[in-house]
């Protein structure tokens, strides 16, 4: 852990991991330490907003990539070792994955499938219903690492697991993908015109995301951690992420969503501290 005050864009970090790949943004003495994969980025973004900096009674620090523009998302061994070093006496919040439903199922599969709880047209006669237990087994490996990480944070004051934001609607995803040259080129290289692929229905992606949230809540319970779901305020009546919290991409939420999360985290930690 190297104490070097440096900068990545507008973000100042105080500490870096051994190789310099990972950095701590914000106050080293902050009571709350946020870590985790790419969905943690919206909290980092929000924590840098002036209104959050001045308005929050409890300071927050975020452990993320030192070079925000070229590094991949956090998650290697060095990253978690860095988090472990920083965690003593802190309330650690891990934003865990949250994109597994997209990684497997952004596009409608062949044959189409559905599951109990899906309410829209995808649950029609042509779709194969998949047992929820089978869906869980697809996602389970993505939670296995938590069984190593959480026990190693035994010096933390508390540990909270958070999932990613609710899914965005199909129309937004469609335009995001079609506008991104990287995606169209990548699909072309696999012999597919990305415009021909059908995006999985909102209802099915929502239900898959619900399964992920359930699995994370189960992991939290099993490992003695708290669980914090996506804020109800961030979701529309159907359950999707409200447009005001969208980034232009397919999966992530913006700094406004990060602000919501900070509020929820502060509330939860405040309760736990009392």
């Amino acid at each position, binding site marked *: 852990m190297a104490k070097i005050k440096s900068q990545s*864009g*507008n973000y100042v970090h105080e500490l870096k991991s051994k190789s310099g790949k990972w950095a701590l943004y914000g106050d080293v003495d902050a009571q709350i330490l946020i870590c985790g*994969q*790419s*969905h943690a*980025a919206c909290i*980092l*973004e929000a924590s840098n907003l002036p209104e959050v900096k001045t308005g929050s009674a409890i300071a927050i620090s975020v452990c*993320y*990539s030192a070079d*925000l*523009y070229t590094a*991949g*998302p956090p998650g290697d061994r060095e990253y978690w070792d860095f988090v472990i070093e920083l965690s003593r006496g802190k309330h650690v919040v891990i934003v865990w994955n949250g*994109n597994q439903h*997209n*990684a*497997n*199922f*952004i*596009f*409608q*599969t*062949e*044959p*189409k*499938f559905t599951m*109990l709880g899906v309410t829209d047209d995808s649950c029609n*006669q042509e779709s*194969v*219903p*998949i*047992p*929820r*237990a*089978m869906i869980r*087994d*697809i996602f389970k490996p993505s939670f296995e690492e938590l069984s190593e990480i959480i026990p190693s944070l035994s010096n933390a004051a508390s540990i909270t697991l958070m999932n990613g934001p609710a899914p965005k609607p199909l129309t937004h995803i469609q335009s995001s*993908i079609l506008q991104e040259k*990287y*995606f169209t080129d*990548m*699909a072309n290289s*696999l*012999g*597919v015109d*990305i415009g021909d*692929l059908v995006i999985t229905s909102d209802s099915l992606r929502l239900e898959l995301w619900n399964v992920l949230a359930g699995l994370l809540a189960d992991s939290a319970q099993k490992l003695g951690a708290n669980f914090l779901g996506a804020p109800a305020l961030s979701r529309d009546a159907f359950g999707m992420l409200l447009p005001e919290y969208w*980034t*232009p*991409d*397919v*999966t*992530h939420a*913006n*700094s406004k969503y990060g602000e919501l999360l900070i509020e929820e985290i502060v509330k939860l930690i405040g309760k736990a501290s009392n």
Partner: protein
Amino acid sequence: MINNPYLVQPDRAFWSRSVSRNFSVDSLLSEASQSSLFQKDDLIVSAGSCFASNLIPWIENEGLEYLRTEELPSQFKDLPENLGYRNFSAAYGNIYTARHLRQLYEQALGVRVPAEDRWHIDGMVIDPFRPGLAYPAESDAEFDLLKASHLKAVLGAFHKATVFVFTLGLTEAWQSKVDGSVFPACPGTISGIFDEDKHEFKNFSVEEITEDLTKFIELLRESNPRLRFIITVSPVPLVATATKSHVLLASTYSKSVLRVVAENVSNLLKDVSYFPAFEIITGPQAPFEYFESDRRNVSEIGVAEVMGSLLKGLTTSEGKKTNPPVETKQMTRSKAGKIISEISRRIARAECDEAMMDKNL
């Protein structure tokens, strides 16, 4: 010169000329089936004992279409499955008795609702007719959704097929005392709880099995009138008997009954052929190596002999012999599924890599 009917019989009618010497598996096939049991454009469905599932890779390797109506998306195909349910056209698994097959079709048609249609065990809702499914339902609502879809897939396969291969496996079964529903396994073995007030052993007779198979074929032909049937008898002996007999005696009884049924039904109904898998493997002419060392499981050599003979002389509907295509429809679907899955994965990864490169920063 004394005349008698044997004088006009061909060589294949004489043991000394067709078994003791000059034995050929092809000579076992009837004149009618010797040309071809399948045509290249057939849609083939199979059901029966585990021996029936051996057929599928051979059919597909020949470039024939094994009809599948209950396929999983490629993302789920690597998950574990028990007892080969998904080996078959729909995920019905092994169907050992003709009664089970008939009842399955009646359920799919909606004319039969079993009294004992589900078991609630340890928070799971188990299908008594597919008790070993690796992923049973977790609620009655999920059970209803999965079961309805399965029965629809059964109907889809049975109604769309042009050839139905059924391998008769057993005469012994366990059934409901309430309504005679036949279970594929004794309750309490793979799943469920055996209850002697509700469950009983049944050893079907020639007459009962002949009636079940005949009724099944007739009922199915009401919806699929041109469907051809190939009936085989599994050469695999019983793993165990519930009778008081020695398992070898029980097995001989069982196979004898099934062989008679196959003969009866193929003589009785049009476009029903008997294929002699049983004789190829178990006849006195069969090499010792056709069974594994347990003398129960058929060896790869034995399976190859049966399948080679079954698929001999493939033709198109125009009667021309064809070469197997390089890629079957199923392979094409599977490849497309994998590509879609790969694109999803790459998009999600790329977005995670770039989460902080968002223009809001």
